[in-house]
């Protein structure tokens, strides 16, 4: 098995190195190393976006969740449709804003629009959370999986080091373009192997566990029903939840956190480095909401039923079963899981490092770097990032897994900032900032690190993680919206408004959306809200027995599969239609490049935050860079 495992790992690794070498041979401009010259083609976005969003959600963990909590956890895959919706709402306008403002990274777009370095710093913090704790968590899981699959022939620690060093070499050599190419390859591989494994489990392994015995969920968990709209629980670690964690509000609030991945600076960076095209709509509708979500909804229960849900090493039983059937089948399982984990690790780590280079090194630290020096600086930042990740994954994996959940929760607090940039010019800088800060604090104190910090330093908090079975991201967003609107009431017509209106005037002039008449507009928004209410909101509890015990009929229908699963599939289909309607028909994701004037506001003094290097930073850099000369003078 070890020989086979080596071969299946060497082939994708060889592809990565080969592509990196090819790109470095072709791309001569050093600054293109960071952002591929913002000229990635449509197909890269189409495949990579779906792969990154699904990897960010963590199919590895979600399969274990479905194995532990049954079909209530399978409902979480509908949050992928929400990611498509969020993409449709924001991705196009963010892209247009970046081209109009002449900005290269998401932080720069927001900083210029709101004229606020604080938003830039907030976005950098979010990018850091994705690039280091979340990437460390993925790397740690990948290394653990590799160690377990090789029966200890490769230790977890050495796997962490090998993967870390290899990823640095290929990213340092090929830059952003090579990273996106490899992301595409891993996305395709992950998707195809998921289909293959689903097919093998349902046809070749004998009795299908899902149909003979069902999911082996934890004791006391409702296997095929949502345990209520919400439960009055103090949160995980405080009071137990009856019937399972995934109440209707838990599912809805989890979808809110999933949106955090779709609006994270790391994911937005992929969109900003892509050429103008129709790839946004295609990816959001067909790849993310359609194929990505559909495959997981349809096949995940079959795979999860083969797992030992409650154990840490949940995949071992399935791996053994597949390997006993055929070595290649076992290898396919490991490769599928590794592809998802490594995709998440490499993409989030490298995108975070590149954002840091663009926004801190090239802007504040060394603003006059030559093209080649930019390439060098990006490699240095990559080296530091990977070193940090490798040390956390290798020696403090608990640190990574504790802080990783903060990434999506804190990222979704950017929601109001996105709304302001894309749709609501009356949302002022102070309103957005106040909302974000309060929202982030609430997320921190309803997640593991905040709870541990408070419990250890002060007194035990009365709530645990996710109180009332509502995800920390949703608690944060609720507080965020409240404070944001409260502040916006008082300064929505301030002097900054005209500054922000410039961009919205261009949106209204050249990039109109086609919502149709009042009736059509009402239908679109009301359908979206009804969908959200029934699919991932309180209405989802209707799905528990909507098809097995139809109301008013008084009869029991034997479907053969749980009513909740049918409900989920039905709302997945409606969800795809909804995303299609908004992305294509309403043109929320279709870009009209004919009317796009590149850099129209790039030189506008009111919208340009000059790349000024702070004085103390300039003195520090000067002192460090001129040190040898001073020493020689002293001699």
């Amino acid at each position, binding site marked *: 098995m070890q020989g086979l495992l080596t071969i*299946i790992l060497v*082939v*994708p690794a060889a*592809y990565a190195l*080969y*592509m990196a070498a*090819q*790109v470095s041979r*072709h*791309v*001569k401009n050093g600054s293109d190393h960071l952002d591929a010259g913002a*000229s990635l*083609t449509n*197909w*890269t976005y189409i*495949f990579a976006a779906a792969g990154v969003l699904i990897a960010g959600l963590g199919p590895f963990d979600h399969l274990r969740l479905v194995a532990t909590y049954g079909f209530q956890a399978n409902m979480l895959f509908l949050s992928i449709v929400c990611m498509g919706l969020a993409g449709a709402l924001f991705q196009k306008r963010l892209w247009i804003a970046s081209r109009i403002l002449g900005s290269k990274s998401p932080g720069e777009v927001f900083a210029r629009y709101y004229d606020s370095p604080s938003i830039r710093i907030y976005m950098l913090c979010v990018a850091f959370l994705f690039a280091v704790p979340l990437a460390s968590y993925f790397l740690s899981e990948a290394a653990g999986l590799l160690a377990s699959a090789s029966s200890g022939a490769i230790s977890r620690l050495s796997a962490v080091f090998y993967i870390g060093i290899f990823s640095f070499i290929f990213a340092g050599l090929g830059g952003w373009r090579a990273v996106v*190419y490899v992301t*595409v*390859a891993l996305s*395709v*591989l992950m*998707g*195809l*192997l998921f*289909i*293959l494994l689903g*097919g*093998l489990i349902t*046809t*070749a392994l004998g009795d299908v566990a899902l149909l003979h015995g069902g999911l082996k969920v934890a004791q006391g968990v409702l296997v095929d029903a949502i345990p209520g709209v919400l439960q009055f629980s103090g949160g995980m670690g405080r009071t137990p939840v009856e019937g399972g964690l995934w109440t209707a509000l838990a599912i809805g609030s989890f979808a809110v956190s999933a949106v955090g991945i779709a609006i994270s600076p790391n994911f937005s960076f992929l969109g900003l480095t892509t050429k103008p095209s129709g790839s946004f709509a295609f990816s959001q509708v067909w790849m993310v909401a359609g194929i990505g979500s559909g495959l997981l909804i349809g096949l995940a229960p079959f795979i999860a039923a083969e797992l030992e849900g409650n154990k840490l090493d949940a995949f071992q039983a399935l791996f053994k079963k597949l390997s006993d059937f*055929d070595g*290649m*089948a076992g*290898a*396919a399982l490991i*490769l599928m899981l590794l592809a998802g984990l490594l995709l998440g690790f490499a993409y989030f780590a490298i995108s975070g490092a590149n954002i840091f280079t663009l926004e801190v090194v090239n802007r504040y630290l060394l603003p006059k770097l030559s093209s080649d020096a930019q390439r060098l600086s990006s490699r240095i930042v990559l080296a530091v990032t990977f070193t940090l990740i490798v040390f956390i994954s290798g020696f403090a994996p608990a640190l990574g897994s504790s802080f990783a959940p903060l990434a999506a929760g804190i990222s979704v607090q950017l929601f109001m900032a996105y709304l302001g940039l894309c749709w609501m010019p009356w949302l002022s800088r102070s309103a957005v900032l106040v909302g974000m800060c309060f929202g982030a604090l609430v997320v921190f104190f309803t997640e593991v690190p905040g709870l541990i910090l408070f419990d250890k330093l002060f007194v035990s908090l009365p709530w645990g993680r996710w109180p009332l079975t509502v995800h920390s991201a949703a608690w944060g967003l609720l507080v965020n919206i409240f404070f944001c609107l409260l502040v916006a009431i008082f300064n929505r017509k301030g002097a900054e408004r005209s500054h922000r209106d410039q961009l919205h005037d261009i949106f209204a002039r050249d990039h109109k959306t086609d919502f149709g008449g009042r009736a059509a507009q009402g239908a679109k928004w009301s359908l979206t809200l009804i969908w959200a209410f029934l699919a991932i909101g309180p209405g989802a509890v209707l799905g528990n027995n909507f098809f097995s015990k139809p109301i008013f009929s008084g009869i029991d229908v034997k479907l053969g599969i749980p009513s909740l699963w049918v409900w989920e599939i039905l709302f997945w289909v409606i969800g795809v239609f909804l995303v299609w309607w908004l992305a294509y028909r309403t043109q929320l994701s279709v870009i009209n490049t004919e009317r796009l004037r590149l850099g129209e506001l790039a030189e506008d003094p009111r919208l340009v935050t000059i790349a000024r290097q702070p004085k103390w930073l300039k003195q520090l850099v000067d002192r460090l860079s001129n040190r040898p000369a001073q020493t020689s003078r002293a001699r």
Partner: protein
Amino acid sequence: MTDREMTDRELKSLDRHALVMALWLGFAFVAVTLLKLGIDHTDWWALSLGFASVLIGFIAHVLVNIVFKTLFTPREVALGLFVFAICLLWFGLAVFFYPQHRLSLFLPIAVGFVALTTAVIFTMITWLGVRGAFESFDIIRRFGPEKKR
């Protein structure tokens, strides 16, 4: 041709190359897994699906060519023919040396090879026309003496 245009053309070619490789990486792995399963377990369903994955990979490659407005590169043709010839040789030798074990799989494998060949010929005729497709294999003319003008 300016440097910038050169770079754009090269990048387009690199883009296409990366996409083709990414697609084949996935489809080839699935195909190899299914073909191995089919042969080891004498399962003609798995074998047929293995050939189907190769066929879908080929169709995806053709679609890439259509999107990028290109043809198969000489290296791709050479690699494809080489792999196809090796597989065909292996099949012939297997039938010859182990007829009792491989006879049950003869039909699905033979149908698979025929299907792949048909797909390739169909693509060539669609893209190049009958004459063009024939001329692609007309080695005698290509390596023969040059015509007098």
